[in-house]
């Protein structure tokens, strides 16, 4: 198989500095500029002010999602995620929500798939607690995506200890390792 795009050597850690706008050359995607894949794969960092008094509700989402995943571990599979980090922090009197995700699909496809998932699982999205979020998001995907894009803070540095490796590839490698270990066990 030709792997020109994946030819980056995973054994060689890599870092990439990213210009302020979040991309090197302006390349239009369906909903706006395309963000590049970096040694740390695709991803985003969404930072938005929360509506006053919603902090407890937002924190409760943490537990809700834990339970959802425990019940159906592959619920988020369509998003092709590596990691999610949700953080709440204060600036002055205001509280902000940070949604940081590292994934393997492109930015717009992730957001489209996420909207679809939120709807399918019947979870009202945590985004509804954010200032300025379009409340008609269920029927107005473009407005949701515009909100996400407006609150995205591009990284100016991304680093990968095993650069450009997708979650699917990591899972395949681990499955292989398991299979190999079990083969060695069987041979005893």
């Amino acid at each position, binding site marked *: 198989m030709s792997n*020109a795009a994946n030819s980056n050597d995973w054994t060689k850690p890599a870092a990439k500095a990213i210009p302020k706008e979040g991309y090197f050359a302006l390349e239009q995607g369906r909903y706006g500029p395309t963000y590049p894949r970096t040694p740390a794969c695709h991803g985003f960092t969404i930072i938005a002010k929360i509506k006053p008094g919603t902090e407890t509700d937002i924190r409760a989402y943490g537990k809700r999602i834990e339970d959802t995943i425990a019940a159906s571990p592959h619920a988020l599979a369509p998003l092709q995620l590596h990691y999610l980090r949700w953080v709440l922090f204060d600036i002055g009197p205001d509280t902000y929500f940070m949604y940081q995700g590292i994934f393997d699909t492109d930015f717009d496809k992730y957001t489209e798939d996420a909207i679809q998932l939120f709807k399918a699982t019947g979870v009202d999205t945590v985004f509804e607690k954010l200032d300025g979020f379009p409340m008609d998001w269920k029927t107005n995907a473009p407005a949701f995506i515009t909100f996400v894009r407006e609150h995205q803070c591009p990284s100016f540095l991304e680093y990968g200890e095993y650069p450009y490796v997708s979650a699917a590839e990591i899972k395949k490698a681990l499955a292989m390792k398991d299979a190999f270990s079990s083969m060695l066990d069987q041979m005893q």
Partner: protein
Amino acid sequence: MTLELNDIQHFLLTRPRALAARYGFLRFRQPDHGRAWLAGIVDRVGRGRGLDSGGTVDSRWVTVAFTWNGLRVLGVDDASLSTFPEEFRQGMTERAAILGDTGANHPDRWVGGLASPDLHALVILFARDVPERERCVQEHQQYAAQFPGVEALSTLDLEATPPLDYAHDHFGYRDRMSQPEIEGMGVEPTPGTGAPLKPGEFFLGYPDENGDIGPLPQPEILSRNGSFLAYRRMEEHVGAFRDFLRANAATPDEQELIAAKLMGRWRSGAPLVLAPTKDDPQLAADPQRNNNFDYGKMDPHGYAVPLGSHIRRMNPRDTAVNINRRRIIRRGGTYGPPLPEGAAEDGVERGIAAFVGCASLIRQYEFAQNVWANDPRFHELGNERDPFIGTHDSGAPFSRQRRRDDIRVDRLGPTRGIANTMSLTELLIKGASVVAFVVSSTLSVGLGLTVRQILEPLSNGRLVVLSLLANFVLAPAIAIGLTRLLGLEEPLGIGLLLVGLAGGAPFLLKLADLAKADMPFAVGLMVVLMVITVGYMPIVLPLLLQGASVNPGSIARSLILLMLIPLALGLALRAWHPPGAARVRAFVAPVSSVSMVCVVVLTTAGHFGSMLSILGSLGIVSAAIFVVICCAIGWMLGGPATDTRGVLSLGTAQRNTAAALVVAGQNFSDAKVVVMITVVMIVSFAVLMPLAGALAKRQQPRDVGSGAAATR
């Protein structure tokens, strides 16, 4: 929620049997004429009404569609216009980069006025057969004549490609194999098609697969029961496609297999999942079986249907998320005359012109084009694109998962975008000027020489061997070395290599004359190099460019036809009737100069973008280094006499760009190859003309000396 069939155009609802069609692309120069035209034709538009009772199709098959600009011109107010989705407001030209319509598929190259903001409406007619279409066209023309303010920017006639027993494209692939059904239409989907989809996926104002009714552009009467359409026109280079299959397969069976691997179905339509090793026409023709497969369980690794093949990208079935929100309905047909099996590429445009219908262009149509067709990492692949509708500006590979061997598909039917591109006349002039350049220059060489003149100066065996070494071993080696050393883009490297392999330019005679060098040697050298080039290129090029689809037979054929035969004819006429030869030559020689200028000008004008990109790359630098090194090699090997040094120096550096252009035009669709050859041609002039002048000056002391003697 039942479909309001009386208010829905039949176009996406059903597909009546139609063997002919006409698409008309309209401009409303006067809004009132546009409105009047529309008011009169509404009655002719085929609606879904009638489909529910007895299933007979409305016989009026006219469909009408508007661009956003068209709605504006017709008088829809600004507040309403702003409620339409952004991708529709922008139009396809603005979205071209997202759709991969770049390079050869750039909107600048779309024909028929389709990239113009003046495109306001489309009127689409499908008809039983050609006579019925002609009758309807006549009728519409009479009707439209009342409204001079409605102008046809262009029209396109479509006809089914024979044999007519089933629908297929010019490449021979059976079409219309897999189409979503719409809930409420009462059509039982064939096995494997999936449950009927909610109407809201295709018509505005209905619940979609999520159970939601999406926002309706205003006023509602305009958008409810409507759909969004995208129009694509894709030229199919049938001769190139067949050459590609031949170049990548040893037997006809293997050719069929490669054709099948690119598509995911045999050309008969039989799916590879169900018929992985051998075609099965009976399976292909059986709608109960021919769509009944999945990928996740039946072919997870792509051993039967390659992960990057067309049908796996356009409909990943069970291996994509939210698949029911990405489906589209296709309508269209083939245009242009069929190219008979075995016939050479005739340069006539033919292809597919189709509409894609959906409720959201950005979620359905653009997603399929942007993510499924053009995502290089689709299914974890590396750097691949859809072999048929993907963007292949720089040539993307295509892999078959079983054998893990890459075959290049950079020459497969480049899409010509929503409509096409370079105008036919420009193509004709350019093709004609290359041919005129090649034929006239070789013919005039022949006309001016006798066989003895050619052979006599070649008695110095050592010099001849060194000349061949310089021209056919060292020059291509330098081209390859420079490509690697400077990391040139592939098409530029190919251009340089073609030039490196092609020796014996007729222009050498002009240069040698200018340089006051050994003319007889120049004559002999040039003819020998030219003749050897004709035999050498077809053999060596495929060896050096493994994996590229070059066709040795066609290279040899065209070089013999365009170079050897004119040379032989010229020599024969010169031997048989010298005064006649001289008269013909007086006519042919200027043609050679003029057509050479035409090639340079037209290549520069036609590929200005590529030319600019080469300016920014190392293309010009590498061309200059190449020419200079060739000069040096010729000088070193051409001794001991200064006269012959000069000839071999010029003769090695002045490459036979005509031969290189012939081969490039036939085998490489990337314009950058031709542009690179032209760059070398221009750089050669710039370097070699002054060099020839300098060489002539070296001779001058002798002349001055004799002049002085005479004065004395």
